[in-house]
């Protein structure tokens, strides 16, 4: 497989698309890792979690046919569990590594579209008002559910850790 497949406007082969998502997820996580002042030595862990998150999400979206919210939940759960297992080897707090890994999944585009849709309502004629409102509400709900799914997926392994086996 040529490495130049990444330069195609839209990778056609499913495997190419899969790798494209993983590399972009890893790059985004590394970039945000630097923004959060994570040391250079620990950035590969950020790349690993970002790539893993996008791999799981893409797998659930493309191969299992799940929706975005369920896929994001599964990805966050896998990332958080992996970070919990690898915690001793990394030099970063679990919370930060979890978040950096899942940041590429935060639906920033939906959030922007939702708020812009609300703005558009003020300048839309009555004929398109209902359509615009419906779209804006749909985006808002998708943002809420996706962020909720990511947060819940991240929290579950950490919360399970505190459950006592014996009373």
């Amino acid at each position, binding site marked *: 497989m040529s490495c130049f497949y990444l330069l195609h406007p839209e990778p056609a082969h499913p495997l190419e698309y899969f790798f494209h998502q993983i590399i972009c997820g890893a790059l985004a996580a590394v970039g945000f890792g630097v*923004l*959060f002042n994570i040391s250079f030595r620990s950035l590969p862990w950020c790349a690993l979690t970002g790539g893993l998150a996008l791999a799981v999400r893409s797998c659930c979206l493309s191969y299992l046919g799940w929706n975005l919210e369920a896929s994001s939940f599964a990805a966050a759960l896998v990332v958080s569990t992996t970070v919990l297992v690898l915690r001793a080897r990394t030099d970063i707090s679990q919370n930060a590594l979890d978040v950096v890994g899942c940041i*590429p999944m935060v639906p920033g*585009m939906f959030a922007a579209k939702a708020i812009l849709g609300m703005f558009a309502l003020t300048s839309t004629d009555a004929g398109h008002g209902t359509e615009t409102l419906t779209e804006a509400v749909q985006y808002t709900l998708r943002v809420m559910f996706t962020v909720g799914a990511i*947060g819940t997926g991240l929290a579950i392994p950490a919360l399970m850790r505190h459950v006592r086996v014996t009373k």
Partner: protein
Amino acid sequence: MVALDAGRMLMEAGANASSIDAIVAQYARGLGAERVDLRIGYASLAITIGIGSNGITRMREVGHLGVNQRLDLELRRLGDRVVRENLTVAHTRGELERLANKTRRHSALVMAVAVGLACAAFGRLLKVDWPGTGPVLVSAAIGQFVRRELLSRHANVFLCASFVAFLSSLLGGLGAHSLDSETVAMAMIASILLLVPGIPCVNAQSDILDGHPTLGSARAVTVAVALIFVAVGLWLAQVVLESCWKGALELHP
């Protein structure tokens, strides 16, 4: 007060409530407290320390909540040392001051390039085409540089978010259009994704799940307001570009 200062620094470094609770208790017990009760608010921390039948309550204001992972890690390590090496109050205070002043940050240039790369990668995930990806990288890097400069001059966080969103999306849109990108609107959105408050967003939820609904709600409201200010900047950029191009381009995705 030393334990409270550690808590304040942790909060300003982006830690969530349960971590702050545990680490402040570690500092306080390591320095001799028998009972520790901490109340974590969005803008202040209050602690009650008990030794024997005596108790004392102190409060501390918390500054701007940013994210600084290296400082967070150093504070956790110092907490371990306080317990393991029985550090004195004066020594611990000295170490805290050293951490506050000496913890290194990445240079502005490294941060700008990293954020540019991250936004370009985000852009690809949002299906921005290749002609639009380059401008996203450059505009997000410029946006991050400007944001850092503004925040270092104590500009209001929300106004700063609006201004950077306007600047980055305007540059991203202009660049993508001039390079004949077919995804100008997406390039504009990808250029401002550096401003999405990811850590506060996840912290808000984890705080509520950990039993700190007040702090979690305050964080959630702050995230919502920040997003509104970011969207205002993006909207203004769209208005400017649409008026320049006089409807020649559909900017609404």
